[in-house]
């Protein structure tokens, strides 16, 4: 939808969406200048739950930062912890046993599905349909149960360790996961029929909230936002890490650039994650889950290290500047939603408020992760 043809500057009003607003999923505030229902100008205000994780990363020893990473994004915590352990392993040169890497990949993908499922529900709720959220949560619950049985917690896992894992998976987990996969496939079909095919849903998303490939590049958008703009970019393929090169999976890419494209990317990604989990379970090698020799104190050599991983929301980067001590000299977290959200101000200009909020939902925001 295009904006109003004629805006009179003296007839606009300011609308504060947030910090407490049902559509912002947290404490995000968008200052909107409105002409009726049309947005003339928007300015995002962040920092309502800024916790300065980067300073904590500098003040604490490397292992002590581990729990912080899962507090960044409470829905896809595994992916973020994965990035952290990979970065430290790269910096300190720790070898990881193969079994541990496979379990990591399985866990990250399970978490990706659970994150996407929750996003799916919350997104449809943004559009006014409440029931899909409940169905999504039911399915997510099965995944959380699986992960709880292994990691011991449901949301903020802190399961990965430098060089390996906190504890091993057992046959119960493997069998239960195998049982959950077909169930999830069935549910995905249900969602397709209930939501994706729905005419009201499609009408609300088709050609709404265009984010072009060039815009993605200028703002550094990654993840499903970039893939919905026709960019074949997934860190798992572009910059392979862990055991992802061993798996056969596709990167769903849609060229429509609208909210529906971003929605479809995520829905397809769940199927791909299921494929990765299946292969991971098949290939899961025996062996230890922690390296035989692991430095007692982790002190990466002096240098500057960067690690990117593909989380549920996009490319998460972690930069560690080490000065050779047990604390990081600089601990930078590049959160994907931060970049994805930064294009909202420009993209929503001239849109109607309900379309803009639908687009905001399609960006898959998790505010603690933006604010860090």
């Amino acid at each position: 939808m295009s904006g109003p043809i004629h805006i009179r500057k003296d007839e606009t009003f300011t609308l504060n969406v947030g910090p407490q607003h049902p559509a912002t999923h947290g404490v995000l505030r968008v200052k909107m200048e409105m002409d009726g229902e049309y947005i003339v100008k928007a300015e995002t205000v962040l920092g309502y739950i800024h916790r300065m994780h980067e300073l904590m990363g500098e003040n604490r020893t490397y292992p002590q930062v581990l729990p912080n990473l899962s507090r960044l994004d409470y829905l896809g915590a595994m992916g973020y912890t994965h990035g952290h352990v990979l970065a430290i392993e790269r910096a300190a040169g720790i070898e990881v046993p193969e079994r541990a890497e496979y379990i990591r990949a399985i866990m990250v993908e399970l978490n990706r599905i659970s994150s996407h499922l929750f996003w799916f529900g919350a997104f449809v709720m943004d559009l006014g349909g409440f029931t899909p959220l409940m169905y999504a949560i039911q399915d997510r619950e099965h995944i959380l149960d699986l992960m709880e049985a292994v990691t011991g917690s449901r949301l903020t896992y802190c399961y990965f360790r430098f060089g390996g894992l906190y504890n091993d998976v057992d046959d119960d987990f493997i069998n239960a996961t195998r049982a959950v996969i077909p169930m999830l496939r069935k549910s995905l079909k249900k969602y397709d029929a209930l939501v994706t095919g729905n005419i009201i849903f499609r009408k609300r998303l088709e050609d709404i909230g265009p984010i072009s490939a060039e815009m993605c590049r200028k703002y550094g958008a990654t993840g499903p936002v970039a893939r919905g703009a026709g960019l074949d970019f997934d860190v798992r393929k572009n910059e392979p890490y862990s055991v992802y090169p061993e798996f056969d999976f596709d990167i769903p890419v849609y060229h429509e650039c609208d909210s529906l494209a971003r929605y479809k990317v995520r829905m397809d990604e769940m199927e791909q994650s299921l494929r990765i989990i299946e292969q991971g379970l098949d290939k899961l090698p025996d062996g230890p889950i922690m390296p035989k020799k692991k430095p007692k104190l982790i002190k990466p050599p002096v240098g500057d290290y960067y690690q990117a991983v593909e989380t549920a929301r996009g490319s998460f980067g972690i930069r560690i500047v080490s000065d050779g001590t047990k604390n990081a000299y600089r601990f930078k977290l590049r959160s994907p939603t931060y970049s994805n959200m930064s294009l909202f101000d420009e993209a929503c200009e001239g849109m109607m408020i309900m379309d803009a909020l639908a687009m905001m939902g399609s960006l898959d925001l998790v505010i603690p992760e933006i604010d860090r």
Partner: protein
Amino acid sequence: MSLTILNAVVAVVAAIAFAAANAAYLVWAERRGAGRIQRRPGPNVNGPLGLLQPPCDGIKLMTKQLMIPGGADKALFMVAPVLAMAPAIMSFVTIPFSETIVAHSMNVGVLMIFAFASLGGMSILLAGWGSRNKYGVMASVRAVSQNISYEVPMLITVITIVMMAGTMNLKELVAAQAGGIWNWNLIPSLSSPLMPVSFLIFFICSLAETNRAPFDLGEAESELVAGFHTEYGSMGFGLFFMGEYANIVIGASLITILFLGGWDCPLGLFPGVWWFLLKIYMLIFSFIWIRWTFPRTTIYGLLNLSWKILIPISLFNLLLTAGLLKVF
């Protein structure tokens, strides 16, 4: 038929009681129904099956303080919820539940119900405007444009039926459909082959008129917080709520009278009034069912639907029926 004062008082009290009881227990039914659809039990703590939930909610709402936001237009702010409830109750007066159970049968019954239904839009406008809230104003503007554009196809559809029956009296409209399912207006006849389409149009319009999902743009909780009743608490909010559910009952009764043969019984097992109630509660269930299945439409999608699809089709249907009535 002259209306004695006693008659009027009894009628109004009965209407209020019916509306209030319905509003209270439809909230319960809605929550239970939504719960079942989402595979959770819904309210089940207060009383058996949670049946004491509505009185508890009512007590809670009544004991809360009525807050008037600073800078609000006090008069409009107070009038709006009453205006939401009153027309709904007034409309009950003319609805025939059976041949005998009707407070006051009027020969312009359909017209009267539509006149009162328009007042509902007014209350939303006043509420949004009076509460001095930007979300409220936006919501009320939406709701009014929605009400106006959906009254048009609704009335055109009603004209079709009135034309066929030759009366505006609700009782006579039902009487015209008596004598079995095939006589109901829902079933296409030679003179009006597009009646199921009319029914669908009327059904969609009554969803929109009562501000129900997927057309609940007036309260669009995910974008406009709570829409026109953002600033309302306590019984002000309660009245809006009751008004909404009373309107649903009226919408369902109107559909029943116009399309489903009113108290006409397909099998004749029990008295007509029970058939009437059964029909309206089936319709209300479908309202609830629809609400918990679909996402919300956009405001332009909603207006497009009305002006580009519903109005042309209903106009075509009107002309077709008029022509066929002349032929047969």
